[in-house]
């Protein structure tokens, strides 16, 4: 738990939570500023122009040059936001996919359970309506999740990692994720999949690599704390 920083040199691996939080922290102030600006403009107009006779109302009603310039300014904002978004997406989708994973887990969704299979160790854990075995992973390593479903669409969502991936019938998608600290990470199916969708939950237990190795050697018996 305390060795996280030592084990994972920061910045080496793509961290979905960091990518999200970084982007979010730029989008939010822009949105708040725009909202405040519009509300102030409406408030100003109402206060300034509400006690006048109708005959005093101005008759001008167009300024296409001003609107053109304004549209251009908006387009620049769009370009700026897209630049940020595309570079974040490049890291989350492309860079992460080229990382060499320390562990691969095959995630299979079914109504209404998760099956986590560790091909390197022959371990299977299940969670959902069938029980609550955790998805045990090492901290600070790139982990490749190959997600698929045997029936309907589900979605593999770990809110604290700010990431989800749909499980689409007929295909296997993969995601490379990093758990940057030890502890429990709740997970849930995010795509409505029928009657007991609400019960299709799981917990990720992130432990340090030594503990993980011990757990895996023991054939996945017991839950490392």
């Amino acid at each position, binding site marked *: 738990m305390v060795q996280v920083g030592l084990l994972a040199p920061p910045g080496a691996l793509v961290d979905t939570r960091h990518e*999200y939080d970084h*982007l979010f922290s730029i*989008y939010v102030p822009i*949105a708040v500023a*725009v*909202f405040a600006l*519009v509300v102030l*403009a409406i408030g100003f*107009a*109402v206060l300034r*122009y*509400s006690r*006048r006779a*109708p*005959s005093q*109302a*101005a*008759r001008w*009603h167009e*300024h*296409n040059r001003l*609107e053109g310039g*304004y*549209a251009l300014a*908006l*387009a620049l*904002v*769009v370009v700026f*936001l*897209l630049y*940020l*978004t*595309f570079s*974040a*997406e490049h890291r989350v*989708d492309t860079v992460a996919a080229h990382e060499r994973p320390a562990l691969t887990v095959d995630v299979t969704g079914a109504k209404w359970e998760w099956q986590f299979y560790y091909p390197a160790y022959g371990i299977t854990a299940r969670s959902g309506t069938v029980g609550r075995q955790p998805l045990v992973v090492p901290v600070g390593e790139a982990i490749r999740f190959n997600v698929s479903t045997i*029936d*309907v*669409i589900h*979605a593999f*969502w770990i*809110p*604290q990692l*700010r*990431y*989800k*991936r*749909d499980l*689409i*019938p007929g*295909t296997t998608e993969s995601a490379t994720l990093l758990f940057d600290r030890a502890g429990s990470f*709740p997970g*849930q*199916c*995010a795509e*409505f999949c*029928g*009657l007991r*969708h*609400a019960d299709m939950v799981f917990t990720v237990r992130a432990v340090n690599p030594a503990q993980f190795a011990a757990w895996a050697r023991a054939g996945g018996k017991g839950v490392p704390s």
Partner: protein
Amino acid sequence: MTTAAPAVHGPTRIPGVLGALTSTDHKRIGLNLGLLSLVFFLVGGLFALLMRAQIAQPDVQFVSDQTYSQLFTMHGSTMIYLFVTPMALAMALYLVPLQIGAVSLAGPRLALIGFWIWLSGGLVMQSGWLTGDGAGRDGWFAYEPLANGTNTPGVGQDMWVIGVMLAALGMTAMAACVAATIARRRAPGMALLRMPVFTWTALVSVLMVVASFPVLILAMSLMYIDRHGGHIFSGFNGAIDYQDLFWFFGHPVVYVMFFPYLGAAAEVVAVCSHKRWFGHTAFVASIMAFAALSMSVWAHHMFTTGGVTNQYFAFTSTALVVPAGIEYFDMVGTMVGGSIVLRTSMLFALMFFIQFLIGGLSGIFLASPVLDYHVEDSYVVIAHFHYTLFAGSVFGFFAGVYHWFPKVTGAHLRDSWGRIHLVLLAVGTNLTFFPMFFLGQDGMPRRISRYPAHPGWGTLNLLESIGAGIIALGVLSFLVNVVVSLRRRQPAGDDPWQGHTLEWATSSPPPAYNFELPLPPIRSYAPLLDRRHEQLDRAGASP
């Protein structure tokens, strides 16, 4: 040159309810569609209240999981297919011919049959409740393969599919009539760029309906076949194919549920500012761009599938900032320099713009795949689209109701009740939907009937449920207002607000063929304001 409307004999009149339901008068069709949509609004609202009762607190079971899935499915389906979209069309059917100086609708029988097809769709969909396994239960977009015959057997889901198909077919027919009316029935002088803002928003909406609803009809037909052994969507990529088809309708419909209400709010802002809508040409260009873009953003609903080109759809979706920004600019530009009266309609219109902005700005977040990877299918999305559809469109709708009620009925709505209605609705709306941003960010997925007692979740959900109750009181106060105002009528006259557009140049309610007096000359998109200015100038020139 002014035109005289043909003062001929009215349409063949059948008395009573049967007459009202079979009339081909566009005002009657529009009113019937609007009134029935309003009934569906109350029904859909009831579903929402039951849902909010179930999830007000963690780990309770007020309704069964099965019932809960029917409630959210039918809440969404009722609101989208049977209230917000048809209500937008109802306003277009009633107002567009009046605003363009037409005496009648083009293809009135097609519109009438469209109304009946839509209504049958609504009734079929709701009748699912009476079947053994209950109403539709796969959400308003019913993804494949969840919605196939194996995973969701039963007649109720079939009735949902057929109901959606019929509702879409009926709305397509009505929308086509509005489009044809604009193309063929404009009064002399009513050039396209002289059409009022509302008519323009209605035009782009009906064009989007005509272009995108047939794809929904197709998707539902395929789904029906699929459900009965056709295996349409079980092949390679079938699940993604269905989503592409569905969202090709599913995103444009979002703008069909927005534009006419934007148009209504815009008319209200202009009239209540005593100044014509600012930047009409730029506005028209921007909503055309808006509509074009909105036909090419559909897969932003599919960022997490891995089956679409995320960057392209992120680009088109984020680009919506530009036309949306123009709309807000024009709204402020209309008020600046005007003479503003804060009528109930104006307050609703301003609330529309302010609250919709929260929906719009949160939409920019959802347009970013990296942000969407987290919040897709969470309560953030629920908050986002309720800020656009409820906090936005429904406020625009009420702005329109307070504005045009005197035209339609000849009587004013009460301002006192109107303000109660506004305050309750605004408080309830924000109390219900704002906490959802926090819940979604914190990891609460949509469509779960139960949730564990995570810190804060119980409190936020309880607040939301209380908010939903306040919204219900707001809607109730609106109904009281309507009843009071119709019982003890305060006559409004033909033009109580000093309107800008032609519907105010005829009696309230308008006669069978809309205009008995010659129309005023049409030299701009605000012909009545032009006339008022001329009178002012003449009075100023020779005092």
